[in-house]
């Protein structure tokens, strides 16, 4: 035993075992190409999963699973980890049987039309990178800190390259009454036949009837074979399994714009039709529930986005908002898309409070939670875009706090 122990010590002094003794993969023959016709992540990555937040909803078919932002890089969300929000469960629809109808009552649409997927995919298409964020992202923290990690505080957020035909192309070919048309209703083919009102201005601008996501078809959980992409607007408007577009002259006050996704104000009124996701950012590493390995240098990294345009600047504070430095932005910086930021930090082992603050192309500066509360109270659920604070304790553990 003594001999073995000293042999081990000698080896350690010489260097690391994983270098000195070549591993099996350096001295053997690996697996063939196309072992997996459709590849999977490494088995060592199994911790990165989308997960439900226990207690948030009562049934999993009307629930949310959150994207593990704590472990992601860049701006593209792996489609397998795209957050989910279903109201009546998800389906894997036979795309050859799927139809899209475009119409309107009372001659609002001159030529009501039906499109197959074959038809739609022949039309002139665009490919654009956009974020999608649930209007209720960060909702549990209007009042106090409630959630342990960035997966649950900010994980109803994803960003993908979408491909499809502009809704304006469809509306124009169906001949809408441009004088009377004010709104569009988008309707899904799931059990809830989810419906949402879109303004005609945005419908004629950058809304996409999309089939492609990150180079392939949409995933079933995200609306295969067809969903609406409404850049900058809360996820619930991005109707999945899109089956119908109806043109009209009045907002529809659908269930999810009359009972939910309405913001309760201090005076007891609800704000209705608050679709825009305002400028927001969050540090993803280090973040809540993570532990720093050591003192010293860290590349602090995070995401910034704005439903109103592009990200112009992100500042980061390490002292709870007293002093700020401007972070590096990675390209591409695109409208209504996530932007990745990075900033140098040397941790001296003392407690520190990390915050990020984004500024968008309109000049809007991401607010503090107390500024939001001063106007909107603590009960509005939706559109919580406050600066997030992470406390790094002396033991290196990072936890969720509110500081302002």
């Amino acid at each position, binding site marked *: 035993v003594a001999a073995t122990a000293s042999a081990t010590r000698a080896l350690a002094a010489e260097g690391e075992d994983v270098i000195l003794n070549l591993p099996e993969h350096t001295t053997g023959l690996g697996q063939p190409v196309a072992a997996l016709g459709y590849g999977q992540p490494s088995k060592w990555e199994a911790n990165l999963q989308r997960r439900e937040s226990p207690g948030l909803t009562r049934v999993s078919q009307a629930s949310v699973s959150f994207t593990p932002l704590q472990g992601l890089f860049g701006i593209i969300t792996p489609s397998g980890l795209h957050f989910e929000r279903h109201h009546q469960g998800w389906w894997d629809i036979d795309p050859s049987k799927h139809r899209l109808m475009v119409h309107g009552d009372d001659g609002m649409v001159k*030529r009501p039309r039906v499109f197959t997927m074959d038809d739609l995919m022949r039309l002139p298409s665009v490919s654009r990178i956009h974020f999608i964020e649930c209007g209720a992202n960060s909702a549990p923290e209007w009042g106090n*800190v409630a959630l342990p990690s960035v997966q649950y505080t900010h994980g109803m957020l994803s960003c993908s390259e979408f491909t499809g035909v502009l809704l304006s192309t469809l509306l124009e070919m169906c001949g809408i009454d441009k004088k009377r048309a004010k709104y569009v209703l988008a309707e899904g083919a799931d059990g809830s036949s989810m419906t949402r009102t879109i303004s005609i*201005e945005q419908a004629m601008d950058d809304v996409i009837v999309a089939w492609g996501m990150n180079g392939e078809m949409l995933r079933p959980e995200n609306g295969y074979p067809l969903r609406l992409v409404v850049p900058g607007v809360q996820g619930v408007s991005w109707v999945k399994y899109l089956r119908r577009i109806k043109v009209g002259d009045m907002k529809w006050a659908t269930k999810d714009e*009359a009972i939910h996704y309405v913001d309760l104000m201090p005076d007891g009124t609800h704000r209705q039709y608050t679709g825009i996701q305002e400028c927001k950012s969050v540090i993803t590493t280090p973040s809540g529930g*993570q532990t720093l390995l050591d003192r010293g240098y860290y590349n602090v990294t995070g995401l910034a986005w704005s439903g109103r345009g592009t990200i112009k600047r992100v500042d980061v504070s390490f002292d709870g908002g007293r002093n700020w430095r401007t972070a590096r932005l990675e390209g591409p910086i695109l409208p209504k898309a996530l932007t990745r930021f990075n900033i140098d930090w040397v941790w001296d082992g003392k407690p520190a409070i990390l915050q990020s603050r984004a500024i968008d192309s309109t000049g809007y500066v991401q607010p503090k939670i107390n500024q*939001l509360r001063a106007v909107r109270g603590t009960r509005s659920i939706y559109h919580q875009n406050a600066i997030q604070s992470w406390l790094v304790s002396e033991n290196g553990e990072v936890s969720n706090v509110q500081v302002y």
Partner: protein
Amino acid sequence: QANKPWHEIGRDAKPAEIKAWNIDVRPDFKGLPKGSGSVKLGEQVWEAQCASCHGVFGESNEVFTPIVGGTTKEDIQRGRVKNLEEGSNYPQRTTMMKVATISTLWDYINRAMPWNNPKSLKVEEVYGVLAYILNLADVVPEDFVLSDQNIAEVQQRMPNRNGMVFYEPLWRVDGRGDVQNVACMRDCPVQVSIRSVLPEHARDAHGNIREQNRVIGPVRGADTTR
């Protein structure tokens, strides 16, 4: 202006097809099918097809937030729900407390309920079960028959009918919200102490965060079981 070269792609929708899908009902009742249903019929439908999830009185919090509760006769008169005001201790925000437009309920029940068998109700059943919900909330009497003829009147009794405000800045992309910060960079005014921390019981409520982080990298997940 000439047609685009893709003008002929797709085909005209047939009237029966539009009819089959054109189910939406607007706040001005455009789209509402003619018909009627009594509270009594509604009670039968509710007990057979809804109560298992929503509770006999629409009070259940098991599967979803309660449908009924928290509204008063006074609310029905004012068209504003007092329990939505700050300081209210009412434990839930029920459907009837929030919804301003009766069309929303008709449309939604018709398209989506019962949850596990949506679009199975007949027109009179939708009227009836909505009448039943409204009766539970004291909006209509027990012997009421809701119909396309009187629904606009009932709308005038919705407890929160005056509770909605259209807030344009968050509807328009080119709007400007009501909350904005300034980009102070040095010696900015903040309180030294931490205002809120993660409650101890919440630390482990989402499972062990250690198992939700990568096994390599600049950080590890904290073992939240300890």
